[in-house]
């Protein structure tokens, strides 16, 4: 578990150094994810240790959003003033994104092979 955690943190650290060093708009952890992905392809898969540690972290991914989300208490005023616009934007835009992405993928998937219907 320690080795796996070190691997994850090391990837994040390298990602962070690259992002900041080259002034890239992409955040460090995302570059870290790409790095780890490349490492997995090269090594031919995660070992048991990395597999189980990663699974443990991802199983409760939702928990990790709680501290940032609680930050809404700082913005209660703005939210109280502008809630109709914020709510409309969140609701309609999220719905539109779900529909557009799924629809486009469904259409693309059908065309190239020209399978039955």
């Amino acid at each position, binding site marked *: 578990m320690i080795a796996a955690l070190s691997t994850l943190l090391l990837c994040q650290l390298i990602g962070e150094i690259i992002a900041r060093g080259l002034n890239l708009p992409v955040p460090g952890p995302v570059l870290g994810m790409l790095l780890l992905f490349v490492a997995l392809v090269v090594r031919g898969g995660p070992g048991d240790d990395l597999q189980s540690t990663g699974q443990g972290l991802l199983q409760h991914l939702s928990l990790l959003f709680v*501290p940032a989300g609680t930050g809404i208490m700082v*913005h209660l005023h703005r939210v109280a003033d502008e809630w109709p616009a914020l709510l409309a934007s969140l609701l309609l*835009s999220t719905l539109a*994104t779900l529909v557009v992405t799924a629809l486009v993928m469904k259409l693309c998937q059908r065309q190239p092979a020209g399978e039955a219907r």
Partner: protein
Amino acid sequence: MTPPLNELWVYLSTSPLLGLTLTLLAYQFAFWLYRRSGMNPLANPVLIAITLLVSLLLVSGTSYQTYFDGAQFVHFLLGPATVALAIPLYTQMRRVRALLWPVVVGLLAGSLTAALSAVAIARLFGASLPSQLSLAPKSVTTPIAMGIAERIGGIPSLTAVLVIATGILGAVGGRWVFDRMRVSDPAIRGFAIGVASHGIGTARAFQVSEQSGAFAALAMGLNGALTALLVPVLVGWL
């Protein structure tokens, strides 16, 4: 209040222990409720935990900063967890390769829809400019979205909240939308929810299936990178 109790409160309110413990307890309780409801998406554990914590902090008169001093240890794990998303991605690589074309086109369409429609609708309903800009990266995972908001003149902490609300909306409504559209492929369902609702959607997708989760993770990573590149350019045209 007797002096010892008062002293105890002074200690607890300045130590990170309380914020950290409360976060874990609130989440466990919320997750327990979610399970008891038969995993009903409306009983979203993130939403319940946040509601509990905000009420508790407001009632006890504790500032968010004090709370976050403790909760930051949980918040920090978002970084390594983002890196760890490479693992399910690797496991599903073969499936991703087979769906390469739909993935690329779906990502472009979804990413643009997410950012442009959020700003346009907020503008239509008369939101202030900082709020509009804070909404632009709403479909992207929190650390990336906050970075984008800062760059384009939004309010990073408001963005964090909007991002989480978007995640919860997608996690709650995704199944309903996809069933109505008759989209049954777990890869497409996962990818679409990952584009629209980043990590919270991904967390939800993992609860449904490993395949859905892997595609959601892929979508979240790609959309994070693409939005970070696109939104600052698009905002220049506003």
